[in-house]
C-alpha cells in the first residue's frame, strides 16, 4: 500500500469504517517559543488515521525539531536496512535560524519526513512513530533527553562476547588490517552508483541555489534601475520624461515578479534537490550499517568456528573446561546465527528499498522539474506581458 506523501491512501473518507487503512500526518503552524538563546520553533503535528493501534481518528501534538531527531534515531536503530527518510539539516547560521524562509523550508522538510515514514509499509508500524505522533509533550520531553544518552552505548552482550573473542584470535586469521567486504558485484555497482550520485546531486543543488540568488539579484537590479529611470524621467521633459517614468515603473513592478519566482524556485526546486541529496546520504548510512552487519557476521562466524575447533579439542582431552566452553560455544553460535540473520534482513530490505527509492525519486524529481519549468514559464510570460504593454505607449510617445 504505497501512499502518496501528504495524501491519504486512496480517496476514501476517514469516516467509513470499512475503508482502507490510512495514516496521514501534517506538520504545520511553526511558532517561536522561548527567549534568547533558548528560543526554538514548535510545530503542530496533526495525525489522521484509522489504524487500530492508534488512540483515535485524529490527534494533535506539539513537537520541536529535536523530537524529530529522536524519532529518526530510533528508527535508524531499529530498522536497519531501510532507508530512513532524512531530516533537514540541524545547524543553521544563527541569524538565519528564525527567518521566515528558513522556518518554512524546515517545516516543509519535516512534513515530508513524517509523511514518508507514515506511508512506508514497515516504518508506519513503528511503535516509536506512534509515540511521536501521540504522546503528551512531557512524555516526549522525557524520552528525548533520556534517549540521547542511550545511543552512545553499544548494545550489551553481543558486542562483549565479540570483543573477548577477538582479542584471542590471531590477527592473521581475521585480517584485522583489511576491512572485510562483500563480494557482490550488483551491490558494488549500487555502492558506486550512490557515491557518484551524491556528487552529481550536490553540484546540481549548488547551482540551483545559485539560480535562486540570481533571481533575487536580477530583481534587485530591476528595482534599482527602475528607480533611476524614474528619476531620470523627472529631469527630462515631455515624451522622454514620460517614457522613462513608465519604463521605470514597469521595471520596479517586474522586480517583484522576480522575487516571487526566487522563492518558488527555492521551495519547489532547490529544496527537492537538497532532499534528494539527503536521501542519498541516508542510503550511505544504511550502506555503512550493512557493512557493519556483514563484518559482524563474518567475524562471529569465524570466531564461532574457532570456538568449535577449540571445543572439540577440549572434549577430546576430556578437559573440565569443556562444559564451560560448550556453553560459550552455544552462545556464540546463537549470536553468529543472529548476526547472519540480521545481515540477510538488511540485504533483503535494501533490495526492496532500492526499488522504492528509485521509483519515488523519479516521481519526486518529475514533480520538481515540473514546478521549476512552470515557474520559469510563468515568470517569462509575465515579463513579456509587462514589457509588451509598454510598447504602444512608447510608440505613441515617439509620434508626439
Amino acid at each position, binding site marked *: 500500500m504505497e501512499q502518496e506523501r501528504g495524501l491519504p491512501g486512496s480517496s476514501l473518507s476517514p469516516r467509513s469504517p470499512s475503508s482502507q487503512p490510512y495514516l496521514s500526518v501534517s506538520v504545520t503552524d511553526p511558532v517561536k517559543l522561548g527567549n534568547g538563546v533558548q528560543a526554538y520553533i514548535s510545530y503542530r503535528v496533526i495525525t489522521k488515521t484509522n489504524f487500530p493501534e492508534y488512540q483515535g481518528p485524529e490527534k494533535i501534538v506539539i513537537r520541536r525539531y529535536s523530537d524529530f531527531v529522536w524519532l529518526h534515531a530510533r528508527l535508524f536503530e531499529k530498522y536497519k536496512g531501510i532507508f530512513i527518510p532524512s531530516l533537514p539539516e540541524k545547524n543553521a547560521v544563527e541569524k538565519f535560524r528564525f527567518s521566515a524562509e528558513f522556518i518554512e523550508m524546515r517545516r516543509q522538510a519535516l512534513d515530508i519526513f513524517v509523511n514518508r515514514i507514515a506511508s512506508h509499509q514497515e516504518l508506519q508500524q513503528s511503535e516509536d512513530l506512534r509515540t511521536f505522533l501521540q504522546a503528551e509533550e512531557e512524555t516526549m520531553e522525557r524520552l528525548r533527553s533520556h534517549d540521547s544518552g542511550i545511543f552512545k552505548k553499544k548494545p550489551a552482550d553481543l558486542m562483549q562476547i565479540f570483543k573477548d573473542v577477538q582479542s584471542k584470535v590471531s590477527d592473521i586469521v581475521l585480517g584485522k588490517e583489511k576491512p572485510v567486504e562483500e563480494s557482490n558485484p550488483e551491490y558494488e555497482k549500487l555502492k558506486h552508483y550512490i557515491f557518484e550520485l551524491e556528487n552529481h546531486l550536490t553540484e546540481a543543488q549548488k547551482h540551483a541555489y545559485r539560480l535562486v540568488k540570481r533571481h533575487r539579484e536580477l530583481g534587485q537590479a530591476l528595482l534599482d534601475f527602475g528607480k533611476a529611470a524614474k528619476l*531620470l524621467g523627472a529631469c527630462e521633459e515631455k515624451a522622454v520624461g514620460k517614457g522613462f517614468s513608465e519604463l521605470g515603473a514597469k521595471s520596479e513592478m517586474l522586480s517583484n515578479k522576480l522575487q516571487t519566482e526566487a522563492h518558488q524556485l527555492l521551495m519547489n526546486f532547490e529544496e527537492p534537490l537538497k532532499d534528494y541529496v539527503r536521501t542519498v546520504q541516508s542510503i550511505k548510512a544504511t550502506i555503512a550499517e550493512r557493512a557493519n552487519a556483514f563484518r559482524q557476521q563474518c567475524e562471529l562466524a569465524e570466531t564461532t568456528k574457532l570456538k568449535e575447533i577449540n571445543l572439540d579439542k577440549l572434549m577430546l582431552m576430556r578437559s573440565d573446561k569443556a562444559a564451560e566452553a560448550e556453553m560459550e560455544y552455544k552462545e556464540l553460535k546463537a549470536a553468529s546465527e543472529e548476526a547472519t540473520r540480521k545481515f540477510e534482513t538488511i540485504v533483503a530490505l535494501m533490495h526492496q528499498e532500492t526499488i522504492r527509492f528509485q521509483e519515488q525519486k523519479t516521481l519526486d524529481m518529475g514533480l520538481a522539474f515540473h514546478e521549476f519549468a512552470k515557474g520559469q514559464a510563468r515568470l517569462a510570460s509575465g515579463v513579456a506581458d509587462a514589457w509588451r504593454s509598454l510598447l504602444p505607449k512608447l510608440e505613441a510617445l515617439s509620434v508626439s
Partner: protein
Amino acid sequence: MMMDSENQGFEEAQLYSSRDQMENLVVKEQLSSKSFSNYRSAMSSLSETHHPLSPPTILTPADSDPLLAPTIDRDVRNPKASDRLFSEPLHFSDVNSVPFDGNSFSDVNGVESPSKSSESSGGLSRSSSSNLEYIQITVSNPQKEQDVSNSIVPGGNSYITYLITTRTNMAEFGGSEYSVRRRFKDVVTLSERLAESYRGFFIPPRPDKSVVEGQVMHKQEFVEQRRMALEKYLRKLAGHPVIRKSDEFKVFLQVQGRLPLPTTTDVASRMLDGAVKLPKQLLSESAIAPQEVVQPAKGGRDLLRLFKELKQSVTNDWGSSKPAVIEEDKKFLEKKEKLRDLEQQLSAASQQAELLVKAQQDMAETLGELGLTLIKLTKFEHEEAVFNCQRVRAADTKNVATAAVKASRCYRELNAQTVKHLDVLHDYLGLMLAVHGAFSERSSALLTEQTLLSDLSSLKSRAEKLEAASSKVFGGDIARIQKLEQLKESIRTTEDAKNVAMREYERIKENNRSELERFDRERQADFLSMMKGFVTNQVGYAEKMSHVWAKVAEETSSYSKENN
C-alpha cells in the same frame, strides 16, 4: 558560418554610392516585412520631428553586426530604406526569425561593439526625405612603427598606427574613399585643434590617453580597445553636422603621410613659446594680432595672461569692481542647472544599467552551469540505470537541462542587445563632458572680454592722468608725450581686441544655443529609440523563454499533483 555571410552581405551593402550599388544590396530574407513596416513607421515618426534646417542624414551604418541593422529592403529607391542601416533595435519578431549564433555576441562581455558607436553618433536616427549623405569610417589594422627621427634612445621610439578608412559621398570631401595611417597622438592633436576652432560646440570627447603602466593587460588587448575607442570617436565626430565638414577633420581623414606633431609638448619649451608670444599690450609694448589674444589662455603659454584673467575672475566674483558684461542670460543659467540635474541622473541611471547588465549576465551563466550539471546527471543516470524508472528520470532531467541551456543562451543574447541599447545612456553621459567644455569656452570667452574691458578702462585712465600731468609742463614733456602716444596705441589695440573678444563671445553663445537645441532634440529621439529597443528586446526574449519552459512543463505535467 552564417555570421560571415551576413557580415559580407552587410559590408557590400554599405558601398552604395551609386544607384547600381544600391541595387546590389543583400536582402535579409529572414526578416519579416512586418518588422520592416514597424521600423518604417518608427522612422517616419522620428523624421517628423526633424528640424527642417538641420543638415541631411548621415549614415554611419553598423558594419559587423547584422542584428543591429537587420533590414535592408529590396526597395532601395526609397530613401528611407537607407535609413535601415542605422543600428536599430530589433523588433521582437526578429528575435524569432533571425538565427542566433553565440559568436555574434563575442563582444558582449564588457567590450564595446564598434557598430554600437554608430547609434550614438549625432545625426543617426534622424531621417531626411531628400539627401543621402553618408560617411563611414573604419579603424583597423594596427601596426607597429618606428620613430626614426628625434630618437634620443638608440633603436628609437616605437608606436602603433591604425589604418583609418573613410567612405563617403559628401561633396566637401571631393572623393569617395580614403585610407590614411594615424597614430594616437594625431587624434589628440585633432581633438585639440577642433577644440580651438569650434569653441562653444558640443565636441565629442576623445578617448583617454590612459597609458597602461606595468602592462596589466596584454598589449594586444590594449591595442584592440584603443582601436575600438578611436573608431567610436571618429564616428561620433562624423555624426556632428558641423564638425564633420571641418577642415581639421577632413585633413585628418584624407591627407597622406605623417601629420605634424603639435609643437613641442614639454612644459619648459611651451613656457618659452608663451614668453615670446605674450600679448605685448599686457606689457605695454607693441601690438599683437587681436585674434591671438582672443584665444583662451593655454597652460604653459600665456602665463602672464592667465594670471591676469585669474585676477579678473576673482574681481568678478567678489564684485568689487563692476564688470561691464555679466552673464545675464537667465535662460542659459536655468538650462545649465537643468543639465546639471540631467547629468546626475544620467550617471545614476548609467550605473544601474551596468548592474542590470551584470545581473542578466550572471543569470545566463548560472542557468548554463545548471544545464550542464543536469546533462552530466542525465548521462550518469542513463548509463548506470538498473531500473526503468531511472531511464525515465534521465529523460526528464535531459528535458530540463536542455531548456536551461536554451534559456541561458536567451539571456546571453538578450544581454548583448541590452548592452547596446543602454549604451546610449553611457554615451550621453560622455557627451556631457562636451557640454561642459562648450560652456566653459563660453565662460572663458566672457572672461576674456571682461578682462579686456577692464584693461581698456585702466589704460584709458592712465592716459588721462598722463595727459593731465604732461599738460602742466610748459612746452610739453617730450618723454611723457611719447609715452602718451604709446598708450594711445595700446588703447587702440586693446579696443580692437575687445571688439574681437565680444564678437567671439557672441559667436560662442550662438554655438551654445544651436548645439543645445540639437542636443535636446537628438537626445529625445535617441532616448525614445533606446527605450523602445530595450523593451522590444525584453519582450522578444521573454516570449522565447516562456515557450521553452512551457514545453517542459507540458512534458512533465503527469507528475503534477493536480493530475495525480
